[in-house]
């Protein structure tokens, strides 16, 4: 019996041995691969010596003799024709840089976690970066390859096109880790409202707090059954506001960013390094009283604090204005929705900054591309990135698909062929979700973009007259809250519990509620958060000379 058992055990040992043997040979083969690369390097060097002028396409030192397969990680879902477009794209890329790109998509499920995984596992070579994906923090932790030297040696064309100014905005601790897109985009928050109702009831244009109040009250007086605002807490999850209605206060203040800075601190756009207190000011008290007055007039639901955001409310006529998280692009969508609905509704848009002439385009780190540390061929990756952004033909395949199959250009405007024929769209506009590869000079406008561009032109004009002409000074800042994360989450809880009802005007005694909020938020450790945050913000202002 025992002998048999040992027999089994021995055979097990043998099997295990076989597996480990396999693993051993596996690692050997990896080493072999390295050797092969080493071997391959030698003829490459020879190649370089002989036709030194051959690689004259702005690529002085890069050797292209060996094909490199890169993985490009982007956000969102893949288009249906991913493989077809990739194949076409790679044909061109092999020609130009002897490299291929395999697009990989995060999908929208748990994308934050997966994005972090992707960087930890170093599975990708090129990766989409954005400030909302914590670019600054990741870069300072060493997630990406430094590009400063390589931009000079490998991709001078790219560097010239993007420009020193934009690249500087992507600097973290003095080093460039990302290449931004070059399309100036205005995401100026503002107010979207029903212009047709305003005309119908002869109400003022809601371009200030007083006029907005008159507009809403006027509609209520004329049509009591009409819903006015569907505000919730969903667009106010950060450390600036706790309830969406508070966004209207941007009409009152020329703050550095919509809703000011975090933790109830704020600064004006013209003096960003002059940080002052908002939550403990008399302005705050006045504002909360105003919001209470609005709530009492029934501008929003009594259950607004627990409602979930119904983003189709405006589209379906359930509200007459939207105040939080709006931008020019959403206005364009609303125009299209109203046209489709065919009820003669009209949507108009006012950016909050128009009132105080504080308008600026999106920050460079809003849409950019970085090379993940651990990438085996960073130079080739940068070369590919240069081709993707600067080469017109490659860029348009990447952004719009195959001309004649997916799209065509009419009068300089992009037109989706499949949508036209009523077929399933297999590659939509910017189908790879590569907002980071928008080339401002060559980006094809969609039919709806004509209207958008008009808005942008207006904003660009206002933006040019500001103290920092067309520079977004806020969004390059990234907070590092490691040392006070406990206090920070305590403050977040207090904001949700005490600030949200205040801003929603759902308290009986505003003064008492303000006093309670102030004590609670102090107890939660507000001072520590503020102190650290302010220090970091001032350092940031200092670094970029935003005085």
């Amino acid at each position, binding site marked *: 019996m025992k002998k048999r058992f040992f027999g089994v055990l021995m055979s097990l040992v043998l099997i295990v041995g076989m597996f480990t043997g396999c693993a051993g040979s596996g690692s050997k083969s990896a080493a072999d691969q390295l050797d092969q690369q080493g071997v391959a390097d030698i003829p490459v060097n020879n190649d370089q010596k002989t036709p030194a002028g051959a690689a004259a396409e702005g690529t002085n030192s890069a050797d292209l003799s060996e094909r490199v397969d890169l993985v490009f990680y982007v956000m969102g879902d893949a288009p249906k024709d991913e493989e077809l477009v990739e194949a076409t794209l790679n044909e061109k890329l092999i020609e130009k840089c002897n490299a291929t790109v395999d697009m990989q998509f995060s*999908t929208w*499920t748990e994308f934050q976690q997966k994005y972090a995984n992707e960087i930890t596992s170093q*599975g990708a070579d090129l990766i989409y970066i954005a400030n909302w994906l914590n670019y600054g923090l990741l870069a300072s932790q060493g997630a990406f390859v430094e590009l400063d030297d390589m931009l000079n040696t490998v991709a001078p064309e790219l560097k010239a096109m993007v420009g020193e100014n934009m690249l500087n905005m992507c600097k973290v601790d003095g080093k460039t880790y990302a290449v931004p897109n070059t399309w100036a985009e205005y*995401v100026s928050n503002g107010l979207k409202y029903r212009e047709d109702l305003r005309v119908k009831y002869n109400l003022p244009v809601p371009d200030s707090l007083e006029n907005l109040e008159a507009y809403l009250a006027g509609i209520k007086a004329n049509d009591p059954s009409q819903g006015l605002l569907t505000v919730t807490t969903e667009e106010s999850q950060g450390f600036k506001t706790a309830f969406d209605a508070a966004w209207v206060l941007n009409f009152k203040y020329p703050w550095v960013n919509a809703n000011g800075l975090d933790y109830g601190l704020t600064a004006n756009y013209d003096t960003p390094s002059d940080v002052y207190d908002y939550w403990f000011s008399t302005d705050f008290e006045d504002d909360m009283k105003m919001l209470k007055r609005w709530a009492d007039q029934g501008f929003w639901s009594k259950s607004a604090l627990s409602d979930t955001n119904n983003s189709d409310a405006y589209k379906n006529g359930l509200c007459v204005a939207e105040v939080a998280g709006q931008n020019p692009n959403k206005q364009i969508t609303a125009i299209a929705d109203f046209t489709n609905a065919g009820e003669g509704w009209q949507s108009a848009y006012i950016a909050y900054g128009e009132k105080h002439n504080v308008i600026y385009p999106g920050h460079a780190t809003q849409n950019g591309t970085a090379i993940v540390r651990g990438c085996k061929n960073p130079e080739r990756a940068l070369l590919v990135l240069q081709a993707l952004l600067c080469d017109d033909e490659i860029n348009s395949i990447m952004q719009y698909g195959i001309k004649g199959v997916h799209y065509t250009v009419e009068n300089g405007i992009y037109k989706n062929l499949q949508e036209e024929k009523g077929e399933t769209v297999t590659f939509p*506009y*910017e189908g790879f979700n590569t907002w980071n590869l928008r080339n401002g000079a060559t980006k094809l406008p969609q039919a709806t973009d004509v209207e958008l561009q008009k808005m942008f032109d207006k904003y660009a004009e206002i933006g040019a007259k500001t103290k920092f002409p067309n520079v977004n000074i806020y969004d390059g800042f990234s907070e590092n809250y490691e040392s006070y994360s406990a206090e920070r989450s305590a403050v977040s809880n207090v904001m949700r519990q005490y600030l949200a009802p205040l801003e929603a005007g759902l308290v009986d005694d505003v003064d008492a509620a303000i006093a309670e909020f102030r004590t609670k938020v102090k107890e939660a450790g507000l001072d520590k958060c503020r102190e650290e945050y302010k220090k970091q913000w001032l350092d940031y202002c200092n670094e970029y000379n935003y005085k």
Partner: protein
Amino acid sequence: MKNKPQAAPTAIKKSAGTKVFNGISYVLLAFGAIVCVLPFIIIVSGSFTDNVTILKQGYSLFPRDFTLEAYRTIFRSPKDIIQAYKMNVYYTVVGTSIGLTMIALTGYVISRQEFKYRNTVSFLIYFTSIFGGGMIPWYLMYANVLNLKGHTLAIWFPALMSPFLVILMRTFIVGAVPNAITESAKIDGAGHFTIFFRIVLPVLKAGLATVGLFLALGYWNDWYRSSMFSTNSSTWQLQFYLYDLLNATTAMKQMASNVSMKTADLPTESVKLAMAVVATGPVLLFYPFVQRFFVSGITVGAVKG
């Protein structure tokens, strides 16, 4: 227990107690059933309701403004959903059959008293249910060490065995096959394979059905591994296909506050509900057939485990 014979005359009282107990449990169970069934009825009713009506008036138990529009939308281009269905069936069948085999064999081995290290092995299996490496090491293991990212293996392989199911299976085997029987079989010259296939397996139906159902439901309802490891939407699990559809809608709406992007063509409320019905349908049909084993399996597990 000692008082039992004497307590016999009080049987009437007891039955009154039993009645009360039964009454209470029926009420509780009915309440539980309503809590479980109501949301599903609302989903089904919502899937037959016009989208604008849902937005304006909210959900209801019976469809108002009855329409099949949502289902028409789904089946207008049914390719994706059919592909997701196919993959889900594939993962469920492959995962459940391989997993069941491995679990049954493991359960048999650690149920044998003559296996000297069975306590050590049981402990090692049990240990993993208390201490895990965490999500990131788990991800790195499959993505970087085993290089399974983008491979369908990564979707069914990680869930083949779980400590709970192995221990459950062992309990079933110990309960179903007394040691004396295997011992006598051994005296008659049977080896482990003969014992396992000719003696243990035939009486293990309830155990196989229970563990099989656990595995199959786990595979059918999983979305996480697709989310982590799929690089191609044609390998997606059904639940992930649906879940991602929802997430895409919310994420894109949120994103649109920061970035210029298209938000049109997102599914409406009623389409989402219809998708949920389409996805859960087969499980509902399949469930009654195994349920009989499932219930007996649970009770056996409860008494012996």
